[in-house]
């Protein structure tokens, strides 16, 4: 049995904070591995992408799964590299730094927006509590 339900907006905003926090983790992994030519499986690092979902109405958001981006690897010309193929090209991760930086900005703004909701709701409750003075 749910004893209290009047703090819904707080739980929803917190779910947003947690989701955006994980999104930030995914972005930082992509940026850190932007030039990782060996991800351990003989392939360069593949870009990761977070997918969000919501369970029910007013249920907040949660990170559903982290999927790998299957788009083409970037090929750069580096004939001196021991991993280069016969034409001198090396496969590099399919991470595009500008895209990651934009996603980083969006995730940061989303985090801030959720904090703003949290703070505003807290102020609303405190306004109500002023009636009890």
């Amino acid at each position, binding site marked *: *049995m749910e004893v209290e339900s009047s703090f819904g907006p707080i739980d929803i905003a917190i779910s947003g904070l947690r989701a955006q926090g994980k999104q930030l983790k995914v972005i930082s992994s992509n940026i850190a591995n932007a030039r990782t030519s060996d991800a351990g499986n003989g392939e360069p690092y593949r870009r990761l992408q977070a997918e969000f979902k919501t369970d029910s109405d007013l249920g907040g958001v949660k990170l559903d799964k982290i999927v790998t981006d299957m788009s083409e690897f970037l090929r750069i010309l580096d004939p001196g590299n021991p991993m280069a193929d016969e034409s001198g090209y090396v496969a590099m991760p399919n991470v595009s730094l500008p895209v990651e930086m934009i996603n980083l900005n969006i995730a940061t703004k989303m985090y801030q927006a959720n904090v703003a909701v949290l703070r505003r709701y807290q102020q609303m*409750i405190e306004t109500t509590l002023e009636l009890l003075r």
Partner: protein
Amino acid sequence: MSKAENIVDLIDAGIRAETLRQKAIANNIANLETPGYRRIDVKFGELLAKCLGSDEEFDLSEVEAQIFRPKQTPVKSNGNDVNFEAEVGQMIKNSLRHKAYIRLLSKKYKQIELAMDVK
């Protein structure tokens, strides 16, 4: 004693529970990176609801808040399941409840004072 009379006792029990929960949250945040640590929480609302719902007489001072480990949140790779954002949310809720109880208590005291002032 009838259940409606002991408002001050009820609020007192609530404030004690919120104080304990604040300690639990502080403990969780302090152990944010402790390997193998599982977060603790305080059970009080359910216990009180059970007592208030039953027909039997009960003593409020016996309704003690309990510390327990929910073990429901996802565990990180180091065996720790504390999430900072979730703890902050708990803390905000906790302080709002605490504030509400304190305001109710001071309101009650004002009522008593008012009653004493009547000549």
